[in-house]
């Protein structure tokens, strides 16, 4: 379990990282927290010739809230996101999801950028990004582009990022509705393990308790995390009662394409998708109802 030989360079900034990627070509890889890449290298599933370390790039470690968005640098530690007051207030779904991400020791190193580009189908941060419609800032030496998270994931462990690009920032929309609630639900064999399936939901309710906006996502039940936009859209305008929740959960289960593996059958994963979507919607509704408009 030792990595193949490689050479190492530290980038002090995003620009330096992009320059190093351009210089060393497709055999160079960025390393941030390394919590997925180092095991991949130990098992020699990845054998980069160069590792460009972006842990010193301070410009990748910013958290900012500007009106309609929460902007998170790709290199922010997951442990910091868990504790950040602005994130808790404006993007509460993310800290809820982070409770399920690995363990304290891995969250102290792991980053949201790393989770995204690793693209494990059962990973929590990608699911939140897809569900809420986050946008990703991809930067290379030549240019920078924005890509919707929903277009980023192509297959298990495969994304649309180019070898010379760095995921510099994740931009999440803020929901301003007074009565907004969210929840993240997951089943794993042990806490901290990869999810057998996970689901999250965010809902906004009006004064009468009618749903004005909803987002639902399911992870671990297909090759990539999916936002169930149509199912969520069906909830809009109606009361978010038990019947609406059960119907949405059934539609969600019908809308995913889980595969069987050693840990769970496809049927079981589909069942979990249904149960977890219902649980997430119920908990999100309760959170929205209990929230005192500020």
């Amino acid at each position, binding site marked *: 379990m*030792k990595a193949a030989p490689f050479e190492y360079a530290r980038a002090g900034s995003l620009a330096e990282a992009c320059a190093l990627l351009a210089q060393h070509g497709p055999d160079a890889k960025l390393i941030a927290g390394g919590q997925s890449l*180092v*095991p991949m290298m130990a098992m020699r599933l990845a054998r980069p010739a160069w590792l460009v*370390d972006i842990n010193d790039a301070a410009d990748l470690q910013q958290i900012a809230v500007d009106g309609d968005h929460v902007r998170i640098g790709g290199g922010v530690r997951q442990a910091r996101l868990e504790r950040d007051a602005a994130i808790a207030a404006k993007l509460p779904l993310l800290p809820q999801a982070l409770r399920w991400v690995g363990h*304290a020791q*891995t969250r102290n190193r792991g980053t949201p950028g790393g989770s995204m580009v690793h693209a494990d189908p059962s990973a929590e941060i990608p699911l939140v990004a897809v569900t809420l419609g986050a946008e990703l800032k991809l930067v290379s030496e030549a240019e920078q582009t924005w890509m919707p998270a929903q277009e980023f994931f192509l297959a298990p462990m495969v994304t649309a990022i180019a070898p010379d690009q760095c995921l510099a920032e994740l931009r999440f929309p803020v929901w301003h509705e007074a009565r907004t609630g969210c929840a993240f639900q997951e089943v794993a064999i042990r806490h901290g393990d990869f999810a057998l399936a996970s689901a999250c939901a965010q809902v906004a309710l009006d004064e009468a308790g009618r749903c004005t906006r909803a987002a639902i996502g399911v992870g671990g039940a297909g090759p990539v995390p999916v936002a169930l936009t149509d199912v969520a859209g069906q909830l809009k305008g109606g009361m978010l009662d038990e019947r609406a929740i059960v119907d949405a959960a059934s539609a969600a289960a019908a809308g995913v394409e889980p595969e069987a593996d050693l840990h769970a059958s496809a049927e079981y994963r589909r069942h979990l998708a249904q149960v977890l979507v219902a649980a997430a919607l119920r908990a999100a509704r309760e959170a929205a109802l209990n929230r005192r408009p500020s």
Partner: protein
Amino acid sequence: MSERQYTITLDVNGVKRSGIAPARMTLVDFLRDVLRLTGTHIGCEHGICGACSILLDGEPVRSCLMYAVQADGHRVTTVEGLAAADGKLSPLQDSFCEAHALQCGYCTPGMLIASHALLETKADPSEADIREAISGNLCRCTGYQQIVEAVKLAAERRRKEKSA
């Protein structure tokens, strides 16, 4: 094949240490094989078991999931750094003995680091806090119950020491 070697200087348990390693050497291998600090154990070498836990700049991390060259310029605390300079065990270490929190001892350095980090931030952790803090550490003797009890005992002792 001549692999490029990197000079690595870091603060280990309050002492400045240097060594030479190829980029692919993990931090745990560097601590054990180059600096000869064999208190930190290597279990799975891919971030599952937690035996290699250390404090990096005060935070618990897995030293098999970092290359030594990445730790250049940083501050590391290993299990050797938990005891007093004269070798006297810390209240946490002593509580592990007291509560029989180790059988084979393989997971112990990682368990100590994880629980030490918890007690540094929470003086009076609940049982759930303790279980959460050591959830990334596997004990194949499955002595978890005694480990939880040891951490509870240590928290109590530390609080008494503070108030005394």
